[in-house]
């Protein structure tokens, strides 16, 4: 078990290094000079002197290898550079906004699991029943509606017509706990709707599949109680693929909250990224992409370790 954990951690560290290198290459090797691109907005050719000045500021005039070494060294110190627009430290801004995005994702995931997992299990156990058909159809629909459509319609309905919750914004938890949860409800709910549908479908399929396995029949042949068969034999094995799919989607949410944060004006990491993209603020973009990718790698590490806990066969692989 320990050897497995150590190996997974080494692989994860290697991946972080690869990601950092790729982000560096994406900026430096793709045709076009970032400094020139940055200054040529509006279709006007930039002044060469200004370009040179910016190149020096960005460190783009040094040899590529030197830039790479400097970049990695700065990374090791947790230094992601500073914004081109107003010189604030990128790392500090990320540290401020990242928890808000994570809160959104975790809240959405908890909601989605709460509905999707029991729902999918029940639907599989009563496969073909009216309840199963209804829930499956509902899942198919909520899976298909883009999250920004859900969010926009939710604002129209719950904030404008019914006036239950504010249309968006952010209230710090320390200042107003209830207000915080109220503004969290709609964005988290919008993400949760699609995610719950995914978990529902995956759980349903997986439970149906595992229920056909020989060991389930063998457990029945031993007279084990149905509840115990479902919980201990079917679900325990059916959860493995569900966890994989959930992790994949949580990972894509790390960058995918962009739309929801934009719709609800949630001051998270993704909104920061969109602004950085719009302004072509390279240090900000690379910093955010890097942080999200590292989180993604860590998430996969967590999944691998969860797998090892749930499935004894993995520990020896």
């Amino acid at each position, binding site marked *: 078990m320990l050897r497995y954990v150590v190996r997974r951690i080494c692989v994860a560290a290697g991946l972080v290094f690869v990601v950092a290198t790729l982000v560096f290459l994406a900026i430096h090797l793709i045709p076009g000079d970032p400094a020139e691109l940055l200054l040529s907005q509006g279709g006007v050719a930039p002044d060469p002197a200004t370009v040179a000045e910016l190149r020096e500021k960005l460190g783009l005039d040094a040899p590529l290898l030197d830039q790479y070494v400097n970049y990695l060294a700065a990374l090791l110190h947790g230094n992601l550079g500073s914004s081109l627009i107003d010189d604030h430290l990128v790392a500090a801004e990320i540290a401020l906004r990242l928890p808000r995005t994570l809160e959104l994702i975790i809240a959405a995931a908890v909601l989605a699991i709460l509905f999707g997992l029991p729902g999918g299990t029940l639907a599989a156990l009563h496969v073909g029943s009216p309840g199963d058909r209804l829930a499956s159809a509902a899942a198919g629909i909520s899976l298909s509606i883009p999250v920004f459509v859900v969010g926009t319609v939710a604002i129209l309905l719950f904030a404008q017509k019914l006036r239950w919750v504010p249309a968006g914004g952010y209230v710090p938890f320390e200042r107003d706990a209830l207000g915080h949860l109220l503004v969290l409800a709609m964005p988290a709910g919008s993400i949760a709707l699609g995610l719950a549908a995914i978990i529902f479908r995956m759980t349903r399929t997986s439970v149906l599949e595992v229920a*056909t396995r020989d060991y389930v029949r063998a457990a029945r042949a*031993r007279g084990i109680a149905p509840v115990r068969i479902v919980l201990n034999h079917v679900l325990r094995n059916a959860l493995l693929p569900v966890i994989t799919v959930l992790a994949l989607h949580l990972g894509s949410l790390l960058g995918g909250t962009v739309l929801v944060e934009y719709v609800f004006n949630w001051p998270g990491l993704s909104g920061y990224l969109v602004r950085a993209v719009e302004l072509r603020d390279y240090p900000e973009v690379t910093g955010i992409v890097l942080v999200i990718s590292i989180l993604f790698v860590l998430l996969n590490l967590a999944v691998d370790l969860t797998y090892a806990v749930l499935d004894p066969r993995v520990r020896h692989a």
Partner: protein
Amino acid sequence: MFARARRGLLVPGMEVGAIIAIALAVPLLPLPDPTAMDVAARLSPPSALHLLGQDEYGRDVLSRILWGARTSLFVASLAAAAAGLAGTLLGLLGGYFRGLVELVTLRFAEIILCFPPLLLALLVVTLMGPGAATLVVALVFLYAPGFARVCFAETLAVRELDFVTAQEALGARANRILGRTILPNVAPTLLVQFSLTVAAALVLESGLSFLGLGVVPPAPSWGLMIRGARSTMEQAPWLLLWPCLALSGTVIALNVLCDRLRDVFDPHAGRVGTGWLSKRAPAQAEATAQAAGKPSLLRVDGLTIEYGAVRLVRDVSLRIAPGETVAVVGESGSGKTLTALALLGLLPSSVRLCAGRLVFTDRDGCMRDLTCLAEAGLRKLRGSEIGMVFQDPTASLNPVHRVGNQVAETIRAHNSLSRSAAARRAIALLREVGLPDAQKRARSFPHELSGGQRQRALIAAAIANEPRLLIADEPTTALDVTIQAQILDLLTALKTRSRRLGMLFVTHNLAVVAEIADRVCVMYAGEIVEEGPAREVLYQPRHPYTAALIASVPEGGAGRLAAIPGVVPLPSALPSGCAFAPRCRHAGPQCTAAAPPLATIATGRTSRCIKWREIS
């Protein structure tokens, strides 16, 4: 099943077809210019001239929706097609040539798949600036790896198939094999992947446009329309509704089409294993009666099992006395395993027990018809009165639970015993079935045991509650020959230890029968063809099928093996008259005239052959 899945394609297929047709026909329709502004009439509600109203610049909403469909679908399908082409090529090459090619194509694809998709798209937009062309590039970049991976996996699977190897052996060129042989085989999967990708690309395109990073205004796009309508949500909520409906409706249609396509290409998708959980109790009242006459442990009368209209098991009757071992012998497909499963009410939900009585005498001497028992009643008997050992010990143990726990679980299912007491009992049982170092083995997971050890553990679980009847369904088939003998010895030892234990031993191996059985039932094509004491049946068979089976057993010193010509007939296409007649060398015209009855030829011996006197 297949035809039904295909019919399911019709409605979503027509919906998607209609959407595509509209998008293609837009330039021909008499629509106002989607970019023509009329600021005076901004936010007008629907009217005869503007069916869906006018937007914040007074542009016609219907026209913008339809032109938007064109833009969105064009970008999405172009991207999906390009991604499909690139990905398929990468996957095919990687999967066929492996080695360095695989490293370059597949590892690269996997690294891209490591990034959250929207994040990657934003990165591409940063580097290239917004616009429809950027969108297509970003989407291709995003979705090609998915195709590559799917195609790679499929290619690997197909590549191993015999006909590809055969083509290679015949000297076909790689491009011919790839294009003519492998591609058609991976095409269904790719088609599903393509429609999935179009849906995903549509969502991503509209999402980026919604953020203002996709399609550039004033070109119409659903994402842009939703973005625009947000600011006037209060005054004109319908402006928000139309593009939302159009976008969601299209994605739903595409996703449903995808699901249906998958149903068509994956025939296993419909398999259901949970039917028993919602099964209702049989309508009849439970039949219980006191034992009359000589008590048998189990009496099967006229058991008939159907799959649809096809009878898989026909009119099977047998009895087992306490302490007696009855072997059921027959080739694969003779219905012997179904018979065994029917005893415990464990038939798969696709087949149906349609006639017959299964009378079991329980510990209290009460005779109960198992076919009349509800699931809960059967559960009380399973594992306590009747134990079962299955063919494949590897598949029959739950991989995530320790072996000892699976035995202890069986004990606790029928007794109120503390967890630790059950664990101790489980270890004792594992020791009893000859598992070395039982204390430690009880803490092992199934994958840490050998096949023989797994079967021993399953036998321990089956006898944990001292059953009166043990059903063993080919318990040695999946094991090595040397281990087979050990497991047989174990089962024989169990019999001698408990003189009252009746056993139903299902096998296709006559050598095993000679060793363990008191009586033998020979099954062929779903019915019993001969029954009698084991020694008599094996030494003096009275049915040509039994005789042929015996002649086909390899024995030391025997000359040639006599294979039985032909194959077991399909249950859906049984020959008229005697089912064995087409393969029988004794068959005459009277054999195919009428189905022969099971005739009693001596006390305790029956045969379904009308010429039984001629056979010896």
